[in-house]
């Protein structure tokens, strides 16, 4: 049987593990951590990347400006230079002007953006500028495009019409100036910035950014490793913290499990009483204490019940065995049977009382709630016990004023009979049992006082306990098992009333029952 169950058990165990609080805490923790680390990593990477590119772009822009300023439209002509059209140096038309979009080389020249009027550049046949621009490699330019620098820049200068005017040695072989796209642009491993001048000429500065991109890649890996490390550390730490947070719960659970398996005397350690779990443990401990007390009471009750049954069973056994041991005359058999009958009656009474109590305990016994004449009930109860009192030579006195109560008349009658019987049993022959009934605003009050010696102080707290008897032994003649007062209390409690027992000033015990009156509802 055990073998086929095993996989189930393992699966169950895994399922339980994934449902465990610690696991779920950990999962949430990990999810949040992953999101945070990822966001942080990407943000850091993006910031660093844009910072680097901005820096490169700044450098490129500076160089593009230099390049533009190195382009002299009116330089020494390579062809016939129109002398009639001198172009003053620094003419506004030659000023580099940033443009986002290169001009359409086939279309007309773009409109001048400057309102400063100036003569249009002289054009030769075929749309060529009249003077071929000249590119002057000034020292600043040489310095800016030092091929021996750690990350050397390169340049390209095109004339209008895609003719390369100048280029640095390390410049890539770009046959045409960039046609479209934004500047700066990324072309493979190169970062380039270009500028169309108003003349249609184009300067471009670029730099190989491969090492920078590799650097950024390294940064990405480093960030990734850092994130993984933080995540790992966070998970381990989280597991540890979750474990620490859950440990008291596990301790509570283990203690509760031990208690559940029967060791009711165990308690949860509540050293950490201030925390939420400490308070939970205290609540649980209180519950366990009540449970234990209740179980102990139940156990005592069962033991007492068994104890009470032992005697009549002994009698029946003994009588039957003796009677059967030899032939006897009918009178002997009759006597034995009579003894058995009495013992059986006693057992029956005991069992009825036990069942009564069990029903009252379980709340199955629903008390009626109706007005009834308590005075009549008390008189009937007194009449019922009169033969017993007469037999023992006890006088019953009743002072019953009119009293209406709310509840179950039959059950209250049972209480009255119990109290009266009890009182008669504790009153010596010739004594008196006094019953008083009165009613006031708070309800009705029934008091039964006996003429006995009163209740010893040490018994007062236990009067209404099941099987408790004033003299620690059976008051056997009546077959009274010590359940009468317990049943009475259960009934009165179910009515929302109060039953009390004590000693009267003038001697003797007095039991008082208070019940809600008929008006109080």
């Amino acid at each position, binding site marked *: 049987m055990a073998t086929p169950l095993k996989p189930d058990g393992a699966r169950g165990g895994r399922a339980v593990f994934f449902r465990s609080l610690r696991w779920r805490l950990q999962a949430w923790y990990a999810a949040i951590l992953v999101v945070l680390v990822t966001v942080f990593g990407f943000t850091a990477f993006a910031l660093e990347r844009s910072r680097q590119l901005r820096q490169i772009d700044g450098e490129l822009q500076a160089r593009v400006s230099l390049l533009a300023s190195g382009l002299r439209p009116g330089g020494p002509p390579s062809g016939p230079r129109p002398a009639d059209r001198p172009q003053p140096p620094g003419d506004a038309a030659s000023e580099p002007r940033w443009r986002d979009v290169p001009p359409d080389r086939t279309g007309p020249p773009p409109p001048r953006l400057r309102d400063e009027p100036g003569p249009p550049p002289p054009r030769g046949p075929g749309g060529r500028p009249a003077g071929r621009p000249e590119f002057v490699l000034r020292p600043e330019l040489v310095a800016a495009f030092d091929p021996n620098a750690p990350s050397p820049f390169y340049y390209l200068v095109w004339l209008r019409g895609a003719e390369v005017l100048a280029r640095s040695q390390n410049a890539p072989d770009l046959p045409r100036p960039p046609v479209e796209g934004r500047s700066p642009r990324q072309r493979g491993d190169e970062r380039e910035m270009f500028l169309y001048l108003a003349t249609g000429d184009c300067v471009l500065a670029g730099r190989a950014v491969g090492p920078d991109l590799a650097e950024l890649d390294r940064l990405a890996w480093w960030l990734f490793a850092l994130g993984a490390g933080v995540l790992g550390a966070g998970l381990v730490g989280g597991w540890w913290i979750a474990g620490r947070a859950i440990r008291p719960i596990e301790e509570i659970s283990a203690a509760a499990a031990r208690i559940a398996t029967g060791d009711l005397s165990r308690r949860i350690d509540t050293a950490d009483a201030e925390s939420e779990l400490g308070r939970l443990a205290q609540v649980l401990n209180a519950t366990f204490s009540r449970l234990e007390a209740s179980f102990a009471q139940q156990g005592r009750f069962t033991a007492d019940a*068994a*104890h009470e049954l*032992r*005697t*009549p*069973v*002994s*009698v029946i*056994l*003994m*009588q039957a*065995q*003796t009677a059967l*041991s*030899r032939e006897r005359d009918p009178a002997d058999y009759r006597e034995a049977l009579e*003894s058995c009958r*009495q*013992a059986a009656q006693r057992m029956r009474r005991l069992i009825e009382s036990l069942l009564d109590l069990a029903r009252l305990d379980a709340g199955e016994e629903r008390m009626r709630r109706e007005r009834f004449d308590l005075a009549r009930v008390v008189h009937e109860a007194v009449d019922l016990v009169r033969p017993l009192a007469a037999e023992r030579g006890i006088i019953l006195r009743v002072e019953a004023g009119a009293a209406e109560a709310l509840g179950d008349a039959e059950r209250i009658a049972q209480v009255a009979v119990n109290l009266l019987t009890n009182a008669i049993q504790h009153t010596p022959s010739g004594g008196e049992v006094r019953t008083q009934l009165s009613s006031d605003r708070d309800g009705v009050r029934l008091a039964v006082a006996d003429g006995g010696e009163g209740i010893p102080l040490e018994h007062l707290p236990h009067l209404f306990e099941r099987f408790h008897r004033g*003299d*620690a*032994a*059976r*008051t*056997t*003649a009546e077959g009274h098992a010590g359940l009468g007062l317990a049943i009475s209390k259960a009934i009165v409690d179910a009515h929302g009333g109060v039953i009390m027992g004590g000693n009267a000033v003038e001697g003797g015990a007095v039991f008082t029952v208070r019940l809600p009156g008929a008006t109080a509802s």
Partner: protein
Amino acid sequence: MRVLIVEDEPDLLRALARALREEGYAIDTAADGEDGLHKAVTWNYDAIVLDVMMPRLDGWTVLALLRETKKTPVLMLTARDRPSDRVRGLDTGADDYLVKPFDLDELLARLRALIRRAANESRTRLEIGEIVIDLPARLVRRAGELVPLTAREYALVEYLALHRGEVVSRTTLYEHLFDENDDTLSNLLDVHVSNIRRKLGHEFITTRRGHGYAIET
């Protein structure tokens, strides 16, 4: 054999007394601890059956007080069956312990064993010459032949046989064969002795004038 039963349960007391009387025991009864202790101290019983839960004085107290003066074998009878209760009973000086409800035969057997042990006798069959006394069956055989004895006669033979070699005074015999309610004439003992001698042989019981009777070993 005379046995005191201390039991507060009247039905049980009556039934027990009756059953034991039928077994040939002389039975005294006490319905509470005080009365029981008084009787137990006053008389030399062969055994006492003592209930634990009793009014006035409980069984433990009676036993403890009794043990101050007497070694009478005591069988505790109780409804408490926890081992701790038994241990307490035995440690207080009880010789045996029986839990209610009990089997009558078991009670009788335990009682016989208690009485035998008190007389330092471990055998249940006593052989004296050609006389054999079967204690559990309460039968006496002479040379293999069953000898019919009355309950009183058997009790007398049993008592003397368990104390054989001792001279048992008439007073002691009275004390152990008749219960408190017996107001038997004093010469009844002689009648029983002469009947036994007629059935089991004249030499079986010897008379020590002025001392009492004896069964020689």
